[in-house]
């Protein structure tokens, strides 16, 4: 389903999707990767998400806290800050507008292609003849 997706597409929307995924509940890196994979981003790896989490935290869009773990080092749990939630609302609106635009352009392209195919189908099959000297 997702193996042929352009990685640049994922890169562009990953910060927004990360913020969105964190609105359900606070989460730590690997759990977040698992949740986003389950949501359809099968190609997502920790190596892609960890730098994004670092940037979101540096920009103040997520907050974090350490929770002790019995299996090893304390886990770092993230949740969106108020600024992060505001940024998510803005990004969601921008995304909706972009999808609408892309949809319009793609639909127009599909209609043009369909019209071209129909014209080809109805065109006479005999090769045009050219009077001598007009070529």
């Amino acid at each position: 389903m997702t193996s042929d997706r352009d990685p640049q597409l994922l890169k562009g929307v990953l910060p927004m999707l990360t913020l969105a995924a964190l609105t359900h509940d606070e989460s730590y890196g690997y759990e977040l990767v698992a949740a986003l994979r389950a949501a359809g981003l099968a190609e997502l790896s920790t190596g892609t998400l960890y730098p994004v989490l670092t940037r979101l935290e540096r920009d103040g869009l997520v907050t974090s806290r350490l929770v002790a773990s019995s299996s090893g080092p304390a886990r770092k749990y993230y949740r969106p800050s108020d600024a992060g939630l505001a940024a998510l609302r803005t990004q969601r609106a921008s995304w909706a507008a972009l999808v609408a635009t892309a949809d319009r352009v793609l639909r127009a392209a599909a209609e043009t292609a369909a019209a071209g195919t129909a014209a080809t189908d109805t065109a006479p099959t005999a090769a045009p003849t050219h009077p001598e000297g007009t070529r």
Partner: protein
Amino acid sequence: MTTHHDTAPDASATDDAAHRLTWRDRQRLSWWFLRFELAMQDYPGREARRIRRELRASVLDDASRIGLDAALRDLGSPRRLAAGYFAELEHERPRWTDGAVLAAVVGVALPLYSWLGWQMGALDAVDAMGGGTVELSWFGSPVTLTRTAEEISMTTSVTWGPLALSAALALVAFALGARVWRLRRG
């Protein structure tokens, strides 16, 4: 917002988790992080240390569930991960390490190699002419070469000419290698 210092994983808990790995896995983990540190050399210092500490804690936590192999595979190559962190910086930063390496090659190794090569060639030329002692000059530095059946010697004294040339080459190479123009945007 919780500060970065408050959220740094406890080093002793991370060390305990590392000691639960096999000796071979500990070596692999150390090797992986050494390569990561090398790739992160020009990342802002304090932030780089924090990332490394958190990443180590995350890898050990992930390894406890899915094994070290899978945890490292999921992270990808150290260089690629470091590139991911660099890409998330506000501005591209100068690459001081690249600049230093290029300056050493262009400003030190290359002139030294040229100097030695030139002297060896000159010695061969003296030998081809029947041997003896000649006095030459290399970028303003006097060089005395002797090639006889009993003696092969090169005597020179360093003057400002070659040093200034090397320094200028090193400076230009450092500036280009480090991409110093990125400082203007930093």
